[in-house]
């Protein structure tokens, strides 16, 4: 390392690794992981999100989980929350659907309306 620009490069990479501790996240994906969600495959859904996001090097996306969402007939349920936009809730998610949501919604900014079960707060 010889210059401030070198340091900046290391910093950006390191910040990426620390993004869970409150870096700049553009989109938050919240997977409902209540007992019924898990029974309906919420863990697979979450894992697929993590993998897809990692494979695509999406540095500003955060995946977290929450408890029961009160939508048990629609489990697994996933919220996609983008700064300054209404929350989008997808239902009956599967790993296949996750892949599509990642490409369409998270990468290209187009909501996959077929899977949407609710919007807004």
């Amino acid at each position: 390392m010889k210059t401030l620009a070198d340091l900046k490069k290391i910093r950006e990479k390191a910040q990426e690794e620390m993004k869970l501790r409150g870096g700049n996240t553009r989109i938050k994906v919240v997977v409902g992981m209540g007992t019924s969600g898990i029974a309906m495959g919420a863990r697979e859904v979450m894992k697929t999100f993590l993998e897809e996001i990692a494979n695509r090097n999406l540095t500003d996306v955060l995946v977290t989980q929450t408890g029961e969402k009160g939508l048990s007939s629609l489990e697994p349920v996933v919220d996609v929350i983008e700064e300054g936009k209404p929350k989008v809730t997808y239902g009956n998610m599967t790993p296949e659907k996750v892949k599509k949501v990642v490409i369409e919604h998270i990468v290209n900014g187009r909501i996959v309306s077929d899977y949407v079960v609710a919007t807004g707060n």
Partner: protein
Amino acid sequence: MSLKRIDLLICFGSGCLSAGAQKIKDRFYEVLQAKGLSSEINIIETGCMGPCDYGPVMVIYPEGIFYKKVTPDDVEEIVNEHFLKGRPVKRLMIQDEEDKTFFTQKEIPFYQKQVKVALANCGFIDPESIEEYIATGGYEALGTVLTTMTPQQVIDVIKKSGLRGRGGGGFPTHLKWQMVHDNSSPEKYFICNGDEGDPGAFMDRSLLEGDPHRVLEGMMIAAYAIGAKNGYFYIRAEYPLAIKRIKMAIEQAKKAGLAGNNIFGSDFSFEAEVRTGAGAFVCGEETALIQSIEGQRGNPTPKPPYPAVQGLYKKPTVVNNVETLGNIPTILLKGADWFASMGTETSKGTKVFALTGDIKNTGLVEVPMGITLRELIFDVGGGIIGDHKFKAVQLGGPSGGCLTTQHLDVPVDYESLKERGAMMGSGGVIVMNDEKCMVNVAKFFMDFCVDESCGKCSPCRIGLKQMLEILKRIDSGYGKEGDIEELQRLGETISKLSLCGLGQTAPNPVLSTIRYFRDEYEAHIRDKSCANKVCPDLMHFEINKDKCIGCSLCSRKCPVQCISGSREEKYTINQLPCIKCGTCMDVCPVKAIAKIPGMHSDVKAQREAEELQQQNQEE
């Protein structure tokens, strides 16, 4: 790019380690492994998070959920409920008296009035990872300084910031730097003082353990400013983790090209070394510390010459405290004005304190200068434990002073504390409740200073010992008229005539307690009574015959067999042989035995008789 979705930060500060943090971490490994979650969760060991009394503590991101007093048995529940189902475990969160639960670290009242500058990363990053330090802006200040600023410009920024030494004296940092900067000597040294010998203090240790790169970066910036190529970290051998961490930081920085030759492509080259001290309080004094690094006995030397003129190996040297250095990178990044906007007229920025004693939230805190003692003790510290009242606070370590309820609204800054007979010191805060005896407290600190006096100069070596003898006499019931005045006379003389800061300040606890609790000294001397029943000779145990059921338990358990009686007569303590062990009070099934203030009349009479006899013999 990682697949992680949770950062689990476990506090590995000394407090939490001794409370079992390692076991918690091991248990997490096991459970996560068993459940196939290892790839989703980062486990990170951090430095002290602050509320040590609640250890082992942890913070879980992204939400920032804070758990206290976690045991290995709680781990499975955390994983199942929180990590898998997203339901944080409420019973492990901090609650206040009104049963309000605080979910995230940010909400906890303990953190509300704190402002973290030196401690910004402590408890938030992995101290063994240079990358994490860099992620928080680390080494940016060093890079900027080396590539865009002259040493004089650096000193000017520090001057404008108003930074004063955090090691005790509060000497303006830029003045020392300027003196050494202006010296034309080709060889100069920089020393970081990490001796920290005050009982109960752990500020510097926590910073070295929790964010070693910050201290190293601060040292390098300072070394550039004064023109030194070599720096020493002087750390006591009792702090092995701090030593390990700082050594690791030096190695990592070298590997990354952030220490060594031509840092950031500049002309500046720097080597840092660690020296360990044997742990004598006086070795924290800068001239003694220099002697110690040179391999001599750690005795203070007269000043002048000051280290800035003739320091290590007789070369111009700056000695700065760990926390002082911890502020440097941030001041250069955020600017002098930002730093100077915190604090009071003469005391800028923040100060780290180690809260100990009878206070709810014992631990490590950083607050803006100028905060009142009330805010520090009651808002941040959570007030006094149990049903007791606040009585006094000892600020400034063993040679600081005691302040009392009347001072609760005093702002914490160098001058305000000094005016009232205490001092900022390095940041040890010992809070005392209304059960304490101030004569006893003063004796405790005096005992420490007598032990730690290096013995080089006589006011300190002989004078302090004399003061301790008088205190011992007072608290064993042999105090006499004039003792208070004699203590004051001795204290003032020793303060004036001692060679180093130890002797100069050691009388402070006695002088300040006489100033604010003179009535307690008088009661000890005149009435032979310790109102709080702390001094054994000035209190006694008594059996209430109305309550006593004559079970004889106390009599059988008394180690010196000084309790006698019968079921009918009830039991009585023979006061002369009683050694005040308190066993009788502990074993009595009906709580018939109580501690009573004051020397028992039998003992008084016996002592008077002895005195008379002695006088007769002398005549």
